[in-house]
């Protein structure tokens, strides 16, 4: 599903974040990407989303080299990205309206996708109900809680029926109970649709709970692909299992191994 082939990327006047970095993700896999701030997690996600382009190497998704955002990739951000002037309904409908605006041109919108007004309404209603925010449809983002906003952002993305979902610290600004229930719900919805998921987080527990595989990044430049396997099904009981505790301990240990290198004076971005 995702192939990163010898990808190098640096921001202007900065040391490289990725240097000949390669990584493979199979379709249907659920990955966490874990690392400290400034390690390049969000950069990796923006490269996958086609919102940044590598200086060398290739990002290939579903066999297609990525040079611009791909219509079947969904992106969810920590700060929701909802438009404050539009109601929850209009925010959730936005992606579908953009598809109607362009029509199936193959560039902004998949060529086989024809969306009319009735289809828009049906899909928005369905996803509002799935995310349990149907009664908030006429509210503005400023009138609802952070968890409800993130539900609206998730509904907006899933309404476009993506095959790849990228999430950048999606639950970080939420309180613990909201975060945990939204993690479970999101993973359930992704499993139903058979989505490939890449979730970026700085939180060890979240990485262990969500990711069936965990990619570890460290202070740049990232060259080698370091990952651990974490096969499990993410339901509430997993959180109290020994396997979960072990994964958390292992991840903590691997992160700690990186820390001395940083404190020896390497630049941490």
């Amino acid at each position: 599903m995702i192939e990163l082939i010898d990808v190098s990327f640096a921001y202007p006047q900065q040391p490289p974040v990725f240097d000949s970095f390669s990584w493979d993700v199979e379709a249907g896999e659920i990955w966490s990407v874990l690392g400290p701030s400034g390690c390049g997690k969000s950069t990796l996600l923006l490269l996958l989303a086609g919102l940044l382009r590598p200086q060398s190497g290739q990002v290939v998704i579903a066999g297609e080299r990525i040079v611009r955002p791909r219509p079947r990739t969904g992106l969810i951000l920590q700060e929701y990205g909802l438009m404050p002037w539009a109601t929850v309904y209009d925010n959730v409908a936005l992606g579908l309206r953009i598809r109607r605006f362009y029509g199936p041109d193959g560039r902004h919108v998949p060529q086989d996708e024809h969306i009319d007004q009735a289809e828009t309404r049906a899909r928005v209603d369905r996803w509002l109900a799935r995310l349990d925010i149907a009664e908030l449809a006429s509210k503005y983002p400023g009138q609802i809680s952070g968890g409800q906003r993130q539900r609206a952002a998730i509904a907006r993305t899933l309404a476009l029926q993506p095959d790849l979902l990228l999430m950048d610290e999606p639950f970080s600004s939420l309180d613990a109970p909201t975060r945990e229930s939204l993690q479970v719900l999101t993973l359930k919805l992704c499993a139903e649709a058979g989505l490939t998921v890449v979730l970026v987080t700085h939180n060890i527990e979240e990485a262990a709970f969500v990711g069936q595989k965990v990619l570890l990044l460290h202070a740049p430049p990232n060259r080698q692909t370091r990952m651990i396997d974490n096969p499990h099904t993410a339901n509430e009981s997993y959180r109290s299992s020994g396997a979960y505790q072990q994964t958390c301990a292992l991840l903590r240990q691997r992160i700690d191994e990186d820390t001395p290198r940083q404190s020896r004076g390497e630049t941490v971005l």
Partner: protein
Amino acid sequence: MTQSVNQPAERADGTADPRDETARSRGLSLLLAALILLLVWEFVALTVQIPILPTPWAALSTLVRELGRDLGRHFLASLLRVVASITLAVALATPAGLVLGQSQRLNRLLSPFIYLLYPIPKVVLVPIVLLFLGVGNAPKIVIVTMILFFQILVLVRDSAANIQPEILTSVRSLGAGRRALFRFVYLPASVPAVLTAVRQSIGTAVAVLYIAELFATQYGLGYYIYIQGSTLFDYPKMYAGVIAMSVLGLGLYFVVDAVERRACRWMEA
């Protein structure tokens, strides 16, 4: 985070919307203030008893009588000039502001010019514009348009430049290219800026229209007030003209204010 506070506009239980209540009490207090001002005027006029200060009753009855005759035509001429100026200024300044807000390079190039031109009191340009454009409506409309233009340009530019990057990233990830971003993000985001700019500058616009109408025209409230006061010495008519001009400014202010409240309901959230 703000929790749910406001009620939707239509309330199923038939009780009054709290916003309507506030609007009603605001209307009542405005009416009361107007009444007190008229009483003060009446009191002073009755005390001093001079022809250059008729009573409000004399002025208002003249206003009603004259609206059906000459004054109505002059009022309409002024109204059309202001409305034409607002339309022209919005149509020119909104796209220009949106372009400057999106392109830092262009903004760097042009902002010194705006910085120099924006604070110039446009009223001093009246004689120059009259020299170039001669008699008729054009110079009056142009001068008022110039006042509104800069105000709208600056506010729209800043609102476009200050759109949260998360909104742009996430809307781009929904498939939006330049055109869709303009249609679904930049344009609706600029609405409050346009309305605020028009509302804030409407007083100045009407004041400058008054000055502009003193020259090279035989229509408009400026001309009417001047001719009644300094040539025909018909003071009740002059006062009727002054009231008509105040109503013009106040009425436009109220209209824009009401549109702003309606269009920017989300800002109360």
